[in-house]
């Protein structure tokens, strides 16, 4: 730490660097204020319990109603379907890469997963609507479904999230010390038993963090649901029904030009605040879980 004596100009540089780092903090504060100020305006006109518990979402009707429950049910459906796809497949891929694959094979397979993660969500949305919903569900399987469904959006969203779940849980599995595996093998276990009973439990908090981050991505994903899930805000009763999610509402309401400060404008921010609160909670859980698995060994 006994560096050469700092020159006067370097004090300025240090301040500049600190200011750059502070941009991250300013952004967070900006987000919180940008969401809360219009949301307060919204809750002056709409009681908070009517918002959180009401089951009719019709902000643009003459007899407007602001119950967010229909949007939440659609988000729950797409998120649950996405997790049903991405958690088993992502964990399977992670176990294969960390416990079975040779370094050479890993080097080929990981870039493929990275490409899967890099496909723009609007392209996934096009795929969900044009191929999964319209070609597979309606033409090939002749399912009883309309132009949109939460199932098509959720399935494709699940594929999109596989790389997230796979790469974070693979990190956690690779961090399990080799001695545990060798001990397990020495006691006569085969690789499957070692994977399931030694590596998996040891990496559990990292795996949970991966799943939690997957939830956060599914809840916040916009373009896939805006394109393929539907645009009518009704309580979703089954996977083949269409439904508008929270993000889907924000995206579609953004298309109309709403005046700053109007109830319509404030509604966007009330839903945005709810979305931010959900993902923030989920992210904190994820960060805590990752810290725990880092401390484990």
């Amino acid at each position: 730490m006994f560096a050469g004596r700092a020159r006067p100009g370097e004090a300025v540089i240090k301040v500049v660097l600190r200011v750059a780092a502070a941009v991250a903090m300013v952004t967070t504060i900006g987000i919180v204020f940008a969401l809360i100020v219009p949301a307060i305006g919204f809750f002056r006109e709409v009681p908070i319990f009517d918002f959180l518990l009401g089951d009719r979402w019709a902000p643009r009707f003459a007899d407007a109603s602001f119950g967010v429950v229909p949007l939440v049910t659609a988000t729950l459906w797409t998120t649950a379907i996405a997790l049903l796809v991405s958690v088993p497949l992502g964990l399977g891929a992670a176990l294969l890469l960390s416990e079975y694959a040779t370094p050479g094979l890993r080097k080929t397979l990981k870039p493929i997963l990275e490409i899967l993660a890099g496909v723009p969500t609007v392209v996934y949305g096009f795929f969900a609507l044009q191929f999964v919903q319209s070609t597979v569900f309606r033409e090939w399987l002749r399912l009883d479904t309309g132009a949109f469904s939460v199932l098509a959006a959720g399935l494709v969203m699940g594929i999109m999230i596989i790389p997230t779940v796979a790469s974070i849980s693979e990190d956690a599995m690779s961090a399990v010390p080799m001695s545990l595996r060798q001990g397990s093998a020495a006691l006569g276990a085969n690789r499957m038993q070692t994977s399931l009973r030694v590596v998996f439990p040891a990496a559990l908090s990292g795996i949970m963090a991966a799943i939690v981050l997957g939830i956060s991505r599914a809840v916040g994903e916009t373009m896939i649901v805006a394109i393929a899930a539907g645009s009518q805000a009704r309580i979703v009763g089954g996977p083949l029904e269409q439904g508008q999610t929270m993000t889907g509402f924000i995206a579609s309401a953004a298309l109309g030009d709403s005046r700053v400060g109007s109830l319509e404008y404030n509604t966007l921010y009330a839903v945005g605040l709810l979305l931010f609160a959900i993902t923030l909670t989920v992210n904190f859980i994820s960060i805590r879980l990752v810290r725990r698995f880092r401390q484990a060994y």
Partner: protein
Amino acid sequence: MISLQDSLAGAPTMPLKTGETPRERRPAPMIFLVVLWLSLLIAILSLLTLIVNIVLEGGSRFGLPLFTEYPASSPDRAGARPAILGSIWVIGVTAVLTIPVGVAAAVHLEEFADKKHWFNRVIELNVQNLAAVPSIIYGLLALAFLALIGVRDKNIVIGGALALSLLILPVIIIATREAIRAVPSEIRDGSLALGATRWQTTWRQVLPASVPGIATGSIIALSRALGEAAPLLLLGALVFVSFDPNGLLSGFTTLPIQIFNWTGRPQEGFHELAAAASIILLGLLLLMNGLAIYIRNRYQKRW
């Protein structure tokens, strides 16, 4: 810290290969391995299906007119020229805004910050959190910011670039920090021992050594911004743009927004156009990711 793993260096990491010993050849372990392979194959097959589907749908419309024509009410005459130029403008401005700030923030956190100080701990937590905030929230932020400073025409290049910059800033900070951390401390100690100041050490030793890592991270972050549509939707980038963007305050649309627009039209011809534009977007992203991987493999120093 020396772990058992290190002390066994040289020994085979895992002496058993599946199928080589009787206990690996029983039905259950074999089925388990098949299931693991299936889960990866389903992911890869989905990617292939998506690419084949896009190419089949859009292949016939992929040609010069797509790059040179303006959007039109008839799918036969429409092209994505303003969207392509808009994407270039927005991503260019985003890069200029974000990379210096992101690198400076990372340098502060890695080389200068007192990690125990509350200010730096709050920033650390912030960066981690911001990386997982839904992209559409950044659109709401940019919309509120433009309203606050009284900009009436919100669909402008600088507004879109601002939203995307804040979106990818955490990605660039995290990647740069990793690149800086990978520079061994001996390099710093050597430089400091010769009488250099902290800043001279950072500027002349640490940063040049971490340029490949920073470049890789920045390209990947920019490719994410290139494919992003949600925050720009909120700024009204979906409006019909039939002119070339020509400055920071110019109206714009981008490729992902154009794809979204065409996907939502009822006519089949527009869906083909959406697929054709998706080919451009996927091609650009593959190119950028390929470049990032190339830089990583070619220039990254092994210490």
